[in-house]
């Protein structure tokens, strides 16, 4: 059953649509917040065989409803996991190639999918020192990533102030030429639309609009020109089951309010 758009939050929409990007049988390296929640949602719905990795050192987690971990380094991440290991070792699985998809959040993104979570303003004299990369740089450097983030003009910029986690860097072949022969940014999911990247210039394009969202609305909230490739799809509305499962997983609404 479909849901009335008035009855869910933007964060719930983001989590549900992000979860749909995952496929059963994949190995996914999930960051904290919406990625962790969306990967867990996918695991409960269409991806029962999804293997979730956390950078605290967890392989194959089944997070318990109502006990979402406050970070990916907490004991709650290990619930019903197949294995725990050192945090450098779980990150090295990315380098060895065992991970199909990296799934992370973003603070600021540009037209080539580069992410900034380090500085606002000049890094030498930062206006704001942000928390930094964590495992984001490793995940983005070593596998295909899905980014789930809020869609605002100040977050979707032509060039990020600082490349914390690389997308396609300056587009074209610049990523491979920088020493990153594998991976890249695969999807960006926001409360407005799902985006992919064209094969040549490696610039962001709209893949599908979220239900009820117009292209103008997306353009108004984006600080660069989006590549348009007709026809643009429309994402299926949120289903009752997705919403109910999300709320069962996060009853305290830590990540879905």
């Amino acid at each position, binding site marked *: 059953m479909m849901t009335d758009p008035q009855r869910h939050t933007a964060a719930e929409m983001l989590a549900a649509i992000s979860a749909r990007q995952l496929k059963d049988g994949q190995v996914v390296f999930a960051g*904290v*917040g919406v990625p962790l929640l969306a990967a867990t949602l996918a695991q409960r719905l269409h991806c029962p065989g999804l293997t979730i990795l956390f*950078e*605290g*050192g*967890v392989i194959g987690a089944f997070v318990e409803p109502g006990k979402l971990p*406050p*970070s990916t*380094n*907490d*004991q*709650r*991440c*290990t*619930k019903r996991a197949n294995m*725990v*290991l*050192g*945090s*450098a*070792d779980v*990150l*090295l699985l*990315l*380098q060895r190639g065992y991970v199909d998809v990296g799934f992370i959040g973003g603070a600021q993104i540009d037209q080539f999918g580069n992410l900034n979570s*380090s500085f606002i303003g000049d*890094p030498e004299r*930062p*206006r*704001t*020192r*942000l*928390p*930094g*990369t*964590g*495992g*984001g*740089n*490793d995940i983005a*450097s*070593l596998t295909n990533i899905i980014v789930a983030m809020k869609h605002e003009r100040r977050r979707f910029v032509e060039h990020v102030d*600082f*490349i*914390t*986690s*690389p997308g396609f*860097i300056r587009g074209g072949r*610049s*990523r491979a030429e*920088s*020493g*990153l*022969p594998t991976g890249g940014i695969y999807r960006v999911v926001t409360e407005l639309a799902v985006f992919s990247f064209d094969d040549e210039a490696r610039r962001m394009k709209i893949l599908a609009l979220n239900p009820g969202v117009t292209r103008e609305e997306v353009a108004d909230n984006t600080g660069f020109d989006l590549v348009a490739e007709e026809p643009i799809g429309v994402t299926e509305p949120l289903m009752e089951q997705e919403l109910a499962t999300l709320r069962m997983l996060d009853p305290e609404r*830590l990540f879905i309010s």
Partner: protein
Amino acid sequence: MGFLASAGYYAYGSNDRTAAEEMGAVANSVVPYARLREGVSSRDRSLREKIVSLEQAASFVPDGASVGIGGSTMSRTPMAMIWQLIRARKKNLSCARGIVSTDGDLLFGSGIADHMATSWFAQGILWGLSKVMRHHVETGSARYDEWSHMAMGMRFRAGGMGVPFLPIRSMLGSDVLRLRPEAKEMTCPFTGETLLLVPALNPDVALIHVQRCDAYGNAQMDGLQFMDIDLALAANRVVLTTERVVSNDQIRREPDQTKIPFFCVDAVVEVPYGSAPHECYGVYEPMTKHLDAYVAQVNKSPVAGMRAYLDRYVYGPASWNEFLSLIGMDEILQASRLGRSIHDD
């Protein structure tokens, strides 16, 4: 006090530096191999009892030391040891940890540390940016050197392996690398590919909190081990705090659970709830009410709010137990109930 005999070791600024060492000091102090080996050979590595008080343990951390901090984010953080170092009014500590949360706030906010190498520094994802870190970094009173999380891990691993660097395939092409001239790009002599060499990190002292160890320092960790094994091997001194001290017989019944061997360890302190208000796997989860109140106070005022917090919770209490009683019995019991529930099925 044998451990102080080599205290000069900590001070790289003495008058016998070679050009290579000078370069090393600039490049984030990769310790020359001879000095690294000498550091180990000069330690008493015999099977001996090492139990000291929290106060005595603080003397293992000289002013200006580089300090590796175990655990990650809000898990198995050696908070009691950090608390004690603040009380002992240490100076100019240079710290490193995989991921930093409120421990970093306290280190910067108290003024005992002015440098942190890490991959992420905030108050925990539930609270977002650290106003304390921002205040000190944006005003230039402290430095935050950012590395990727894997790079931090491989730096400790290189340190633990006794090699000056390890190659990795991340950070390349990013501005994180642009700000880290200490890391060097190289062309692989076998494949011609571009690799990044990250320098070994051999802290003067590692602070690690575990669930149990014996009086010799054989340490058993439950749950997530983070980078603690590499960190213990890399460091030139290891100070262990532990939820409980168990017998050597108990350790020998399950030697496969021992993650840090005794000869890496220089001091053992029994400190129940030694990670409070952070979590210790299987024992307690984070004490979120205390952390909520802390974050509200220091984010409102990163200097005065922090000073008031330190006065009340760090300098004020007569002992660690008194600090715990300020957190409060209700919260400690709730955290313990949640901590133990990881074993429920």
